[in-house]
């Protein structure tokens, strides 16, 4: 057999930068930075210097020094916007050689909602492909935050190439009512983090069936769509089924039921060199049982040396926001979660959480992050010089400065990404699996599931319908 050498892929041409904006955004990118599974620069942007210091991102950018004086934006998007405009230089500096910008933001608060559209604008002017991953606030955070989030989302929609929008309300359903608020937010964060990880990896994986950002964009294109996302990874004998099952177990998918309203679904199956066609077939066959007829399926198979021995399944879809039945929403949780998402948006306190409605809860989130910082961050002392140093990067030649072509850029980008070779340093870090309440099928665990309308009927009815039973 003649072996044709694959031309070495020029890594410098593709650079992913992940920007975490505001409290929530920084939390999520911290999570990604922690497991080190992504080879891309991670940049934290915040108005709140305290939160920024706590972040373990490689690059940190403080914006709005003069307006907020190092405090948060106080839940006012106007302040967030002004701060971002003030910090354009710094942001540009951090963004300079990126060809793909992944902006992670929790909408609803001041910094996130206000600054995100500005940064999106900067990224677009910079000719980088812009992927926005946004979370919407919990409904109990109040009308105002929801309105702010929606306004910001509309602005982002116009600018982003791909907009993935997660609803915290939906993610909140995944945790048991007894779980602590820390667990709840951690779960929500790791959910979003996982999707980002999957997106970031998408560009670096190559495989027999390509599926990339263009397909993702096609899936989430419709206006104000809410993302359904699931990721599962499994090894062992029954790995294709187990991986798919884990992916479907994501609360956003509601065990596959959410697909009912979906028009298209993006699937990426990745595995090591030992990924077999039969396994891909199994996953796809099983998946099709959960999908309504006539749904468009964008399918990709990729080989990732990091995954040797296991299979990962990434599912992505979108439904119109009104297609999500309101009745499915969990009632305002009692007890533990009454202290709202304010901390989530601006974790390390800031003006908002302090003078805001809720009180002491800030304290228990903060220590946790501080702890992570001490353990994980290599040189905490050097944070400030780095922040200062970022503008200097603006001088480096702009790699991504290709002929300006706002939309077609998309296509050209894809061409560049297609022959992506394996990541050079195959890190050992394995993507964490989310722990949801296990789907219990009892004696039918190993048998072929009976699935009707996307419901696994082997799971006890009382569990699926959340019937109240006295124990």
């Amino acid at each position: 057999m003649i072996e044709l050498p694959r031309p070495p892929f020029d890594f410098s041409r593709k650079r992913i930068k992940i920007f975490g904006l505001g409290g929530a955004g920084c939390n999520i990118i911290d999570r990604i930075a922690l497991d080190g599974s992504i080879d891309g620069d991670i940049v934290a942007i915040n108005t709140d210097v305290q939160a920024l210091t706590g972040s373990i991102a490689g690059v940190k950018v403080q914006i709005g020094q003069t307006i907020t004086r190092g405090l948060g934006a106080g839940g006012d998007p106007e302040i967030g916007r002004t701060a971002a405009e003030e910090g354009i230089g710094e942001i540009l500096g951090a963004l300079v050689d990126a060809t793909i910008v992944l902006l992670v933001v929790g909408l609803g608060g001041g910094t996130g909602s206000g600054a995100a559209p500005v940064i999106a604008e900067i990224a677009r002017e910079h000719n980088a492909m812009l992927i926005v991953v946004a979370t919407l606030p919990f409904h109990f955070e109040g009308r105002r935050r929801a309105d702010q989030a929606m306004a910001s989302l509309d602005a982002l929609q116009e600018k982003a190439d791909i907009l993935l929008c997660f609803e915290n309300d939906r993610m909140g359903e995944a945790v048991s009512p007894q779980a602590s608020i820390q667990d709840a937010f951690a779960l929500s964060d790791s959910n979003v983090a996982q999707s980002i990880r999957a997106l970031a990896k998408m560009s670096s994986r190559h495989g027999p069936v390509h599926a990339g950002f263009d397909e993702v964009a096609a899936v989430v294109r419709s206006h104000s769509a809410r993302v359904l996302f699931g990721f599962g990874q499994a090894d062992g004998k029954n790995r294709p089924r187990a991986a798919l099952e884990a992916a479907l177990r994501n609360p956003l998918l509601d065990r596959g039921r959410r697909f009912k309203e979906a028009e298209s679904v993006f699937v990426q199956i990745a595995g090591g060199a030992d990924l077999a066609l039969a396994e891909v077939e199994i996953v796809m066959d099983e998946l099709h049982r959960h999908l309504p007829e006539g749904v468009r399926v964008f399918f990709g198979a990729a080989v990732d040396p990091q995954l040797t021995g296991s299979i990962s399944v990434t599912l992505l879809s979108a439904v119109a926001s009104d297609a999500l039945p309101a009745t499915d929403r969990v009632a305002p949780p009692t007890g533990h979660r009454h202290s709202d998402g304010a901390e989530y948006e601006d974790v390390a306190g800031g003006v908002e959480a302090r003078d805001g409605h809720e009180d002491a809860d800030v304290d228990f989130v903060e220590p946790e992050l501080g702890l992570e910082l001490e353990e994980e961050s290599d040189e905490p002392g050097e944070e400030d010089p780095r922040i200062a140093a970022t503008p200097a990067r603006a001088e480096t030649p702009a790699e991504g400065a290709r002929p300006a072509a706002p939309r077609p850029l998309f296509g050209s980008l894809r061409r560049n990404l297609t022959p992506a070779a394996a990541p050079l340093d195959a890190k050992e870090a394995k993507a964490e699996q989310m722990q949801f309440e296990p789907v219990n099928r009892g004696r039918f665990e190993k048998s072929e599931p009976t699935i009707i309308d996307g419901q696994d009927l082997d799971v006890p009815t009382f569990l699926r319908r959340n019937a109240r039973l006295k124990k």
Partner: protein
Amino acid sequence: MASNQIVVGLEIGTSKVCAIVGEIKSDGTIKILGVGEAPSRGVRKGEIVDFETAGKCVREALVDAEEKSDVMIGSVYLGVTGSHIGSFNNRGAVAIPEDREEIDEQDFEEVQASAREVSIPPQNTFLHTILQHYYVDGQDGILNPIGMFGRKLEADFHIIHGIGNRIKNSVRCVKELDIEVLDVVFTPLAAAQVVLDQNQKNLGALVVDMGGGTTEYLVYKDGAVKGSGCLGIGGDHITNDLSLGLRIPMARAEKLKLEEGSVITGQSTPGEMVLLRDETGFVGKEVERETLNTIIQLRVRETLELLKREIEPLNCLPYLGAGLLLTGGCSMLNGIDQLAEEIFGIPVRLTHIKTMAGLTSAFENPQLSAGIGLIKFAQAMQPDRPRGVFARLARKLKFFALIVMAMLIAVIFLMHRS
């Protein structure tokens, strides 16, 4: 004319394998000679998942049946089920050749073949093609068109199909025991032969067979099969729900379901407890009756609701004069008839086996409907069976004629001599 014939029906169910030995008498009645049963293992949701174990269970059941009936079993009619089995209605049509005016038997086969010319999934095979009605030149409701004049023969068929390999697996499981499989029958079709009489078939009836692993249904209307199907949910699911919901072992859950289970909620006094005794009679755990019944009711209700949804496209639910006939092991659940009545809105009856001779009371068990139905089905398949009263009368007349002839000859002979 065949005399009494021995037929064996074999059903490999999820909870038990049962082999029923029956004798079809020359007058068309069926006598059950013996029932062999063995608890089933290696079967999930009506389909064999562990070939070897299932084979052993089948052997046990057959040996048991042989012992009880004192019959050597050489061939069986095999019942098959599983959620892979699907059905639809289709119409076949043939044009009668120019040189012939009358419709004859070969047209029957052609029209059946033409009805089968539909696309079913490639791995599926046809299980049954059941005639509903004939149309001759568009004329409706013809029962037997042989000998009629016509240019075009059409017929509606109810076609039942399933995944070929899975059906073959069941057959193979039996064949490995050196026992011939005469025919495979979709079990609700067999069960319906037992629980319905011709009148009910004409009036219209829905037969629901809730077994251990599957729930099957069959709709009869105007004497013909209109719809059939199988849901992969059954009594095992109830047991599983109980086991998970009450945190008790499967065996205990099964026992609890059989002894105390009911689908009626809201009627027990608050705090009424059911005691779970272990083998030695000691009380191990208490379960509130309401909880127990709620779990069962939710599952049964869901299953029946799914079933109703399956049947709704047939648009015949309000016209089923004979109502719903509930059979199978699950039909023994307390109150299930009331629940089904509430959901379907038609009269519901729990079935018992009729039209059987022999030790019927011992076999009046809804768990055996399908097995006994297999024998009825076999009977219906027998071509040389005397058909109805007239045939029997004709046979007697022939006998008479012979005697008269012999007497005549004798008389003539005698007269000749004298």
